[in-house]
């Protein structure tokens, strides 16, 4: 398979999978098989791209022109490669998990669920491999739209309210802020191709660039900078596999990915100084701390995880905004490490719900004894998010810490340190309660259905194993932050 074909395949395979799933809707076993096959094929297609990209190649495909001079274009560069690898490998895990979860809970409209799921992966791949801003924007909006049916899956009033907030904020920010920013960039720079070193350098004043940056940062609502973060907790009305893959990996990471991409390839890391970027660490730092505090006070488990995600996303924004090579490496790595950790946590939350129908943190006393595998995995995920070695989260945090020191941003260093404490404060009590508190005697449930348990154990294991097989992600991340070719 040539790299060009693999790029197109990465977008086409999930889309074709969606069609296949729709066609096999009446035969659940066949339908799930189609999903798994599509997931495996996608991962293979993405994996074939790794070695050429590591070798420095930048395979690209240009399709028809959406606006004269502006084609739909794909180009694989290290950051997108990393993102695509993470998303495609976790799709396999979450497909397995979905099968257990959806059947265990007797959810309705399962075919629609799998179709939209596959489509959202297609959109995610489109974002990861986007070669210019317009392509990124196209798939970004598509991702919002195809995840809407997933968020409103239950179809009740709560889902409707959540869906309104989800769609209103994500589409609203992207249309009102991001679209004008993109068009303004086109008007100023005359190109929208992602270019190492940026395309705006020397074409716009520092003040103008700051304004444009603000449009981008708040326009990319998926990155959940405060105050446009509200959609993320609202999206938690969705079934847990959706929350896991989309709101821990695909959707939110698409936002963080777009932020890094815009900072590195549109603005450039060296073209603009603190007058442009100076305000961004403050906003990101505030988001980190405020979201952590909210998470601390949330009793609903998924809500706590959601705010934890908001906070972790701002790590990436903060690290990218520092513009130091090592912090950008950290930002890129964090996209991967946070994904593995957070998806494990969501899987665990879903498994708990499937097995016991418990949703609140305060109900979890002693649950670790009934569901040892689930809570064991939860613990590993939590450790990774907090950043305790040997879990994967430690490494990305390490690079961020070094980056802050390197660029002399001691305030950012303090924010990171403080938030690590907060992370610990909102995760460790859950672990403690689960294993060391007495349990409710009326409970008679065991573990969740086996596909769910297998999936969450697998992601937890991956979280632990990642540091030992870190060459590929590290190399990719290094290429983003270090010397772009």
């Amino acid at each position, binding site marked *: 398979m040539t790299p060009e074909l693999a790029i197109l395949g990465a977008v086409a395979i999930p889309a074709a999978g969606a069609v296949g799933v729709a066609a096999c809707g009446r035969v659940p076993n066949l339908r799930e098989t189609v999903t798994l096959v599509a997931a495996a094929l996608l991962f293979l297609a993405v994996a074939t791209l790794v070695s050429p990209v590591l070798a420095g190649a930048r395979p690209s495909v240009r399709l*028809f*022109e*959406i*606006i*004269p001079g502006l084609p*739909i274009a794909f180009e694989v560069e290290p950051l997108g490669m990393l993102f695509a690898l993470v998303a495609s490998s976790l799709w396999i895990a979450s497909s397995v998990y979905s099968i257990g979860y959806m059947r265990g809970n007797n959810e309705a409209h399962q075919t629609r669920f799998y179709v939209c799921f596959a489509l959202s992966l297609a959109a995610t791949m489109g974002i990861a491999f986007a070669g210019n801003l*317009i392509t990124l*924007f*196209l798939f970004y*909006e*598509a991702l919002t*739209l195809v995840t809407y*049916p997933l968020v*409103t899956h239950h*179809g009740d009033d709560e*889902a*409707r309210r959540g*869906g*309104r907030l989800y*769609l*209103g904020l994500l*589409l*609203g920010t992207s*249309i*009102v802020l991001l*679209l*004008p920013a993109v*068009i*303004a960039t*086109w*008007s100023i720079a005359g190109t929208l191709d992602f270019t190492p070193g940026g395309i705006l350098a020397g074409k716009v004043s520092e003040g103008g660039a700051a304004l444009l940056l603000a449009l981008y940062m708040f326009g990319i609502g998926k990155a959940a900078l405060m105050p446009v973060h509200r959609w993320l907790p609202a999206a938690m009305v969705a079934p847990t596999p959706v929350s896991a893959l989309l709101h821990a990996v695909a959707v939110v990471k698409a936002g963080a990915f777009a932020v890094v991409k815009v900072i590195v390839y549109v603005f450039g890391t060296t073209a603009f100084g603190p007058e442009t970027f100076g305000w961004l660490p403050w906003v990101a730092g505030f988001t980190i701390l405020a979201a952590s505090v909210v998470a601390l006070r949330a009793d609903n488990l998924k809500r706590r995880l959601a705010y934890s995600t908001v906070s972790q996303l701002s790590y990436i924004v903060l690290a990218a905004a520092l513009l130091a090579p090592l912090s950008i490496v950290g930002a890129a790595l964090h996209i991967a490490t946070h994904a593995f950790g957070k998806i494990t946590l969501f899987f665990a939350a879903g498994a708990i719900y499937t097995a016991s129908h418990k949703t609140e943190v305060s109900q979890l006393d002693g649950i670790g004894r009934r569901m040892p595998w689930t809570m064991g995995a939860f613990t590993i995920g939590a450790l990774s998010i907090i950043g305790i070695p040997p879990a994967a989260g430690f490494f990305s945090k390490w690079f961020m810490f070094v980056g802050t020191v390197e660029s002399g941003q001691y305030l950012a260093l303090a924010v990171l340190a403080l938030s690590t404490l907060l992370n610990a404060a909102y995760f460790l009590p859950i672990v403690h309660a689960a294993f060391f508190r007495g349990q409710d005697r009326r409970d008679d449930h065991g573990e969740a259905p086996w596909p769910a348990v297998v999936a969450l154990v697998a992601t937890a294991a991956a979280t632990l194993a990642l540091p030992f097989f870190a060459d590929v992600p590290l190399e990719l991340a290094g290429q983003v932050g270090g010397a772009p070719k």
Partner: protein
Amino acid sequence: MTLEHLPALQVVLPLISAPLIVLVRRRWFAWALAVLVSWISLAIAVTLFLEVGRTGVITYAIGNWPPPWGIEYRVDALNSFVLVLVSFTAAVVAPYARISIAAELPREQAYLLFAMFCLCLAGLLGITITGDMFNIFVFLEIASLSTYVMIALGQRRKALVAAYQYLIMGTIGATFYVIGIGLLYLMTGTLNIADLAGRLRDVGEIRPLLAAFAFITVGIGLKLALFPLHQWLPNAYAFAPSVVTAFLSATATKVSVYVLIRFYFTIFGTSILFAALPTDEVLLVLSIAGIVTASLVAVFQQDLKRMFAYSSVAQIGYITLGLSLANEAGLTGSIVHLLNHGVTKGAIFLLIGGIALRCGAVTFDRLRGIGRRMPLTAFGLVIGGLSLVGIPGTAGFITKWYLVLAAIERGYWWLVAVIVASSLIALGYVWRFVEAAYLSPPDERSVKQGEAPASMLGFAWVLVIACVYFGLDTSFSVGAAREAAVLLIGGAR
């Protein structure tokens, strides 16, 4: 009959088919002839479009009287594009109409509707193709009169009142237009557009020109439903038969916009009138007012057809907004929106026709749960709605792109904010439909109804697919629009 007669045949064929239908009076014959004629029209229009792209302007002297004395048909980059739009819509609507008309009209009136459809098509194509100001008026009235009849054929008695109101407003508009061109004729002694454009520069007295300009603007403004002259449109669209609504929304107002563009840029030229009168400011303010108020009103409608009718008023505001900016990007956006909005609204109203057939009415309480019973119809409507909002991947996005670009080039940042904010209002009314269709318990009265008949659904989906296609590959639409815009801006200077 060779290639050179195509401009005449473009108009004559639909014109002849109308009396033929009246002569035969059979419903199936009427339908078959309407379909045949609209497809031939499309073929002719596409041929003309390609010819113009190859060889430049095509002229045709009716009766072999050379212009400026005789009536001249003149096809250039701009109106060949509009011809394609009009005949394409007709070619999709006509085959769709058979079942819809049979369901909505008494048996003995069906042939009449097809006759009027052909007449209306002839009128619209005639307005577009002719190079003579008075001939525009004649065709305008042919199209309008047949439109009044078609609206009056609507099922409910309100259709009569709507047709009457449209008749009064439309006639006033046409008469204003005649007054305007009468003044121009008195000043220059010519009715030929190309000839007039040359002679106007030598007219010393500018005051009668300004009066003519004002009369023409108001007259055409009435026809194209420029805010606040849009009062006739929501009722006319809401109560006309579904087919008629689809056809009109995609073509009638667009052709009027074409006439306005022709007068503003080819005849008057930006230099003469935009300097003497604050036309662009006035048009800009009216467009924005139209976009915002009509979108807001649309949000609160209970009837789906009425809702999208108000949305049409807003979308026309986008078109005139591009005109008022009067730069290349703005004009490109306007012209390409003729096509984009035509295709989008055509698709939407055709799909609504399917719903009307199955559910009886298209009020929101009847629509509940329609996403499950009529999945393809509902999904098509969602795509059409997204195009109205301007989501990338749909035709509406392309328009928005050019309008925002034009506003940025003029330095109107506040206008950018208005444009994107108005998209959010559009999102509001489109999402009312989505929630009713997918997130509400089904309406008991129409639980058993299934999907619309395949022939209706199929042709409606042709437009839905076109709506997505023109959002992704714009080499035809934007290419043609840009060429026309360059031509107009060049001619205006």
